[in-house]
């Protein structure tokens, strides 16, 4: 079992707090295939936690377990110190866990602004009737929501495309809009599934900067999956390494880098 440490300060002065999400002995099967084999690890308040591993290691499945898209056959998910009953994805989202997808899931027919606004749906309290009757209250709420949305849009530097239908945007920008939508929800925990997949160097640098800024400015806890080792090592506070559904390493980037199992499985055995 992972030891629960006291909260501590990172070198750059951020505070890493208690455990937010604790995964205990998770096993996930698809028929006879075990995608995740008895994995435990935790995510602490305010940290950037990376999950890495070769293709097919079960990283995305892990993220899908956290966000409720998959229900593990064994093991428990603890969120905010309590065991979490199996939830549907929309219920997980309502608990304050937002996510992005490997292959981008945006509302292609809507404008960037509308897409980001959907991130606020859970913060809209007034229902259909009260919106019709108490126009004032609904309007105030709408203004509050718009403020947050505009802030996020400014923050991610997508003001210039706010009215553009998402379907027309290039890939890199779509990824950013998806991040904006997730951020608009003011999540406690943000899950990013390969936020830099398919990007060029410049776009990757932008995205890395945004991830760091989000973590720094909003204090958002982030769990991300990424292939690019360099990026992961620079960004994250702690790294989980998976291979064939098993956890083979867990620790700071330096610890992971010097772990022989990780070097063998992920970076390949060197022959010199």
């Amino acid at each position, binding site marked *: 079992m992972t030891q629960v440490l006291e909260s501590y300060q990172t070198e750059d002065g951020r505070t890493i707090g208690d455990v937010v999400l604790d995964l205990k002995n998770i096993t996930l099967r698809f028929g006879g295939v075990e995608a995740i084999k008895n994995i435990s690890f935790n995510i602490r308040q305010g940290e950037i936690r990376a999950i890495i591993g070769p293709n097919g290691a079960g990283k995305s499945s892990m993220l899908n377990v956290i966000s409720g898209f998959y229900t593990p056959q064994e093991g428990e998910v603890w969120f905010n110190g309590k065991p979490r009953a199996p939830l549907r994805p929309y219920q997980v989202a309502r608990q304050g866990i937002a996510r992005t997808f490997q292959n981008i899931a945006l509302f292609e027919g809507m404008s960037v602004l509308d897409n980001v606004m959907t991130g606020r749906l859970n913060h809209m309290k007034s229902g*259909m009737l009260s919106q019709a009757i108490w126009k004032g209250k609904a309007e105030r709420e709408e203004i509050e929501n718009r403020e947050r949305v505009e802030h996020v849009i400014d923050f991610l530097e997508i003001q210039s495309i706010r009215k553009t239908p998402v379907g027309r945007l290039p890939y890199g920008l779509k990824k950013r809009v998806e991040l904006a939508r997730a951020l608009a929800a003011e999540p406690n925990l943000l899950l990013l599934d390969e936020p830099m997949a398919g990007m060029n160097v410049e776009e990757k640098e932008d995205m890395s900067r945004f991830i760091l800024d989000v973590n720094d400015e909003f204090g958002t806890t982030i769990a991300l999956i990424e292939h690019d080792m360099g990026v992961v090592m620079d960004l994250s506070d702690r790294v989980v390494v998976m291979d064939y559904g098993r956890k083979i390493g867990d620790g700071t980037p330096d610890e992971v880098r010097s772990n022989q199992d990780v070097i063998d499985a992920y970076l390949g055995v060197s022959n010199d």
Partner: protein
Amino acid sequence: MSADFLYGVEVVINGLMSGVMYALVALGFVLIFKASGIFNFAQGVMALFSALTLVGIMEGQVPFAHLINAIFGTHIHNFGWEVPALLAIFLTVLVMVAFAWAVQKFLFRHLVGQEPIILFMATIGLAYFLEGIGDLMWGSEIRTLALGLPQGGARFIEDATAGLGGDDFYGFFIDKLDIVASIVAIILVASLVIFSQYTKHGRAMRAVADDHQAALSVGISLNFVWVLVWSLAGIVALVAGVMWGAKSGVQFSLSLIALKALPVLMLGGFTSIPGAIVGGLIIGVGEKLFEYLIGPMVGGATENWFAYVLALLFLVFRPQGLFGEKIIERV
């Protein structure tokens, strides 16, 4: 202006009005198709069922009377009261919402992720089931809908326009019921648009129509939205059922209006609300004008097939319809 031309105008006006009726039916299809990808064959039967329910409630009829009498040997048919129209409409809406919930809970929840053809087959089953339930609940006689909607030609329009085209022209003949139907349809569409653009649940509805996975990730319950959409389709069906039922009585043939909606959908596209309306209007005007201009040369009765031929032409030249999303396959 010559009288012939003015009669042509009258034909166009009447075409627009019947187009509105087609659009009403098509609208129900579009709502469900957009949000869930289900082509709801039962939409026509829903119109029949809702109209039957409305008549039944208004007349204070006991639902399932035959069944109850057969089991318990009683002879009840009526509660002996009459329900005012507005209250009856409200109750019927509740019945349609309950129906929407039941459809989602007992049918489509179990079919999530199935092939479109399976979902389509399920709606065919649903259509026959609902037809049977309608019979069982309210009986199978032809019913008249006594909502007190105005009937017959609008005399004032006729009087006001008489003589415009010389002595041969007796004024525009426009059915009052058609005018009412158009107004109701405009209100219905306007409120649907406002609902989907400016309310929380409307946003959720559009989100689900666009991308299920993304909708889930922002905390939208698909089940809830689907119940909502089926409820809206039920209300649209009720409006269509009332308008058509007031015209020709509430009877089985009401369920066949669904077939009239098919060509409208081909024209307008399956996913576009404006498409359903414009498609309905084009078909309404098209079939009336065609009958008026070409009909006499080919022996009439062109209204039976004109819409389908037009839809076929559209299928060849613009398969996605006027407003549908263009299908571009990226390679």
